């Protein structure tokens, strides 16, 4: 599995950020794997396991928590692994 980092962008934000190491994301291919609920040439909005996800072409993925419930480090890490694996398996990551 490729290298990626999971970071909590800030203490008061309810979400996690996944950064792929030196990799880009092909949004066209991503839209074939995940349901696109909005896109532009640089970002695709989607849902993954009930969470709102923004996937950026530069290799950054933001996952937002549901309501006031924090995602937390453990859940964030497992979501990140699943998401990156899914994208990798479907050759979405260049």
């Amino acid at each position, binding site marked *: 599995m490729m290298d990626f980092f999971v970071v909590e962008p*800030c203490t008061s*934000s309810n979400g996690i950020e996944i950064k792929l190491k030196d990799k880009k994301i092909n949004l066209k291919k991503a839209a074939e794997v995940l349901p696109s609920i909005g896109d532009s040439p640089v*970002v695709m909005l989607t849902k993954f396991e009930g969470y709102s996800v*923004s996937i*950026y072409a*530069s290799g*950054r993925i933001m996952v937002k928590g549901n309501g006031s419930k924090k995602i937390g480090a453990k859940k964030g890490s497992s979501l990140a692994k699943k998401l990156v694996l899914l994208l990798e398996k479907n050759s979405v990551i260049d």
Partner: protein
Amino acid sequence: MDAYEEKFARNMLNKSHQEKIRSANFTIVGLGGTGGFILENLLRMGAENLSIFDHDRFELSNFNRQTLATEEFLDMPKVHAAIARAKTINKNIKITSSSHFDENTQLNATVLLDGTDNIKSKLVMAQMARKKKIPYVFCSALASRGMVSIFTDYKFEDAFQLPKDLELHHYQTCPSIICPAASLAGSLAASQAVNFLLKKPFVKAPDALLFDLDKPDIFWRAKLG
């Protein structure tokens, strides 16, 4: 009259003051909510020599308050977006940029301006500025509120009563800010920097200028520390 003179003639400054703004190095750390407006104001005042720092890229959640967050610049490094924006206002701009800023960064600043959103970066900037004997223009915004002050010799640590064994990450925030607050704080910071440069009155720490857009009396002054 050349293009520069014509562009900035309505600043109502004499030639020597305009030249001071043109040649001074304004260093801006952070190009988000407040930092973007600091940059925009300085460009409109005729600043032509800038150094900018930011490690981030523009994302959708920046759009409510960050003037450089546009569809065109989405997912672009903030420093690249800032350079592109600056060149649309003044193609002769001399601008250096980096995604990295810390206590070892070489500063060539006449004035150091704070567009950051966390206490750790603010503290590093304040300490570097004090060491180099240059002014540190503190600027902060949160929700509908904001604060501006220029630190020359007064210690930032004393102003905010930071403990010596500060666990900095406890103070880190990701503020929710409305655009008018970010814009006002950034504009005040830029204007204070120019006032300092031109030896006009400015708010000197430990004094600070505060505002809350949700209060009937929007502005007030307070003593920090």
